[in-house]
């Protein structure tokens, strides 16, 4: 045995792939030379604009009565969302470890539900909370939050497609949670209900649904 560390001997035994691989790459890839995709900064700006536009679109019904809230809140939401993405979405580097990313997801969800619970004035009995007109109202609010969130999530997934080989599921889930927050915020502007179950289920659950769905979608769309 000539080496003290056999792992290093294994490493030294690694060989270059046959020349035909490089030639095929030259022929198929480099000669075609597709234009590189948008840069990270462009994607961040596009994400912020998309979130802002999604919030405006999702809150059209409330625009006349809460225009200032909508514009100010939308701008803040877009900036915070872009900041989160800048810090977390990896590109060629896993900027934030998986554990921290999971913690961030949990913090976003818990934060939203805490705000919703604290802003509730009452909790009706579960059996009656979604009966009759209350149920129909909850359904329309849930659909509103979900559709706005789906719009936001689809845009974010499209903007960042093919950029995350490390943890596309966690990144997708984060997009979903941000989009779910967008949906909850937008429906909150146009709904006057302060009943606790209505807020938690109809307004807030889009975070959970979209976080889960986008975790799956991330595996498909976010990998290079």
């Amino acid at each position: 045995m000539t080496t003290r560390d056999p792992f290093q001997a294994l490493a030294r035994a690694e060989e270059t792939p046959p020349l035909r691989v490089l030639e095929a790459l030259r022929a198929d890839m480099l000669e075609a030379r597709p234009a590189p995709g948008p840069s990270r900064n462009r994607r961040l700006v596009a994400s912020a604009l998309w979130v802002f536009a999604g919030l405006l679109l999702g809150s059209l019904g409330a625009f006349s009565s809460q225009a200032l809230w909508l514009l100010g809140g939308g701008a803040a939401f877009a900036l915070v969302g872009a900041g989160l993405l800048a810090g977390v979405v990896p590109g060629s580097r896993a900027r934030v470890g998986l554990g921290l990313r999971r913690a961030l997801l949990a913090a976003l969800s818990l934060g939203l539900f805490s705000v919703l619970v604290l802003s509730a004035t009452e909790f009706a009995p579960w059996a009656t909370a979604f009966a009759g007109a209350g149920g129909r109202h909850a359904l329309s609010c849930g659909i509103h939050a979900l559709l706005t969130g789906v719009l936001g999530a689809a845009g974010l997934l499209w903007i960042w497609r093919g950029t995350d080989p490390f943890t596309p599921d966690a990144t997708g889930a984060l997009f979903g949670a941000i989009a779910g927050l967008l949906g909850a915020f937008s429906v909150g502007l146009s709904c006057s209900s302060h009943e606790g179950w209505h807020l938690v289920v109809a307004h807030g659950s889009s975070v959970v649904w979209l976080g889960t769905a986008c975790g799956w979608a991330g595996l498909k769309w976010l990998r290079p």
Partner: protein
Amino acid sequence: MVEPTLERPAVGSITTDASEPTTEELMEHYVAGNLVAFETLYRRLSPKLFGYLLRLTRRRDRAEDLVQTTFAKVHRARASYLPGSPVLPWLLAIGRRSFFDEHRRAKVRPEDLSYDGSLPEPREETVGLGTDVVEALERALSSLPETYAEAIQLTKVTGLSVSEAADVLGTTKAAVKLRVHRGYLLLREQLEAFKRDET
């Protein structure tokens, strides 16, 4: 056998000479459109990628195809490269995902079909140890559970830090350390059997 240590310096800047550009500098030149930089980068990183994929697939032809697929994906995703970030973990993560995609599509075990996809190919012999320690280590690694073998391959053979290996494997540093540790225990058992046989 030297007792392995888990933590190593990051290998982001692979160079063979102080005057040569680092891998990251080459990547930045390549992103800017310099194709000569791409070829230098390819020659520098492809052996590590090929070695890693060869261990995953256990087939040269599939590993070669995956090297090509991986670099093609890097080419498409090059605009998302963050200047200064280590290139090798990024490349290996893309290669690993490409392997799983291809494996899922084929819906066959990698060693079940021959090159033309029709005839059964003999399984690689993993029972018993070779006459040389390096060969024995190779065989012992092949017989480990995939998660352990992959963690050891990335940290000890490819030379990534624990943190970089965790990024490639999509898990935490603690999980990588645990996998490497458990893998070592199994490897040690097998290599001690080899030592006994040798003496």
